[in-house]
């Protein structure tokens, strides 16, 4: 299935308003922990609330923490963000470590994770260090001043050596190797 028809928006991972470049503002506005006081599925949530919740609240003074005991309901984490998005997480039968990990995720997110389909899992403002390729990268500016028609520009880029050229080369090499001895021989023969 193509992604063009989806009503889900797509985008790239971005920090809203360059968050973190200067000061970092936690995007999580408030977090609500719903749990049942009696049911076993809320045990992890209850453990978390007993042991770690106060420390979490003290470490994050910018996040408002609500705790809602609701009978006969599954334990739920709801995070509300500064952009108005809301993330709902079911924590049924989660241990307190899993819940603290989920809370950590909610704290570090920008908004609801399911509201945006990420097209790439990375983002960079500087995709190229050396400068991206251009068609003019490997062309010298001398090409601008050529007057056409130009004989050199009309030749093929690589002309393999013809058989004649190779023979001439071999002959010259032979002449060099033979040296002066050959010339004397020639003179003798001509004299004869």
């Amino acid at each position: 299935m193509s992604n063009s028809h989806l009503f889900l928006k797509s985008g790239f991972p971005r920090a809203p308003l360059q968050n973190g470049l200067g000061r970092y503002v936690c995007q999580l506005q408030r977090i609500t922990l719903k749990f049942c006081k009696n049911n076993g599925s809320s045990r992890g949530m209850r453990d978390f609330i007993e042991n770690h919740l106060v420390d979490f609240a003290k470490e994050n003074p910018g996040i408002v923490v609500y705790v809602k005991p609701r009978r006969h309901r599954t334990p739920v984490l709801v995070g509300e963000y500064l952009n108005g998005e809301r993330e709902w997480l079911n924590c049924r039968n989660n241990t307190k470590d899993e819940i603290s990990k989920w809370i950590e995720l909610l704290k570090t997110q920008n908004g609801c994770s399911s509201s945006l389909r990420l097209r790439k899992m990375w983002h960079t403002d500087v995709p190229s260090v050396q400068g991206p390729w251009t068609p003019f990268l490997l062309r010298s500016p001398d090409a601008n001043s050529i007057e056409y028609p130009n004989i050199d520009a009309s030749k093929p880029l690589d002309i393999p050596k013809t058989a004649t050229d190779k023979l001439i080369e071999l002959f010259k090499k032979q002449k060099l190797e033979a040296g002066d001895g050959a010339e004397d021989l020639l003179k003798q023969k001509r004299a004869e």
Partner: protein
Amino acid sequence: MVFLSLTQLVRSRGPDEFWRKRRIFKMAAHYRNRPRNVYSLAVRIVHRALAYATKGRKLKKLDMAALWTTRVEAGCQQYGVPLEAFKEGLARSDIMLNKKMLSDLAIWEPRSFEALVKISRERAAVEGLPDIKQRSAFNQVYGLSNLKLD
């Protein structure tokens, strides 16, 4: 008196029918005309779409690989080195870069790519791989000043 025959006239397939059909209609929301609203048509078209999606996952990988190969070939042909010789030269020089990375380098880091082409060309020339052309934009190949390519 108990009316038993009335239940036999009900054509509902069960209490969850609405949600069962909703699963299909959600995937057919962007279709045109009747397949958007009529279950018997929607179900066939949605199943087709899902089958295409399954096949498409493999095809996407093949398409991307072909695209990267085209780009790397274009990059190394600038320097007169054919793709086969380029890849063989890199492999023999123990440079294990995949098609994706090579294409990214060719586009975004052309100087690094040129260095890779030089390494590959030198190795290919030394090992005697065929088809390396004399022509190139930068014909100075490091370490090959004495080598003749006939």
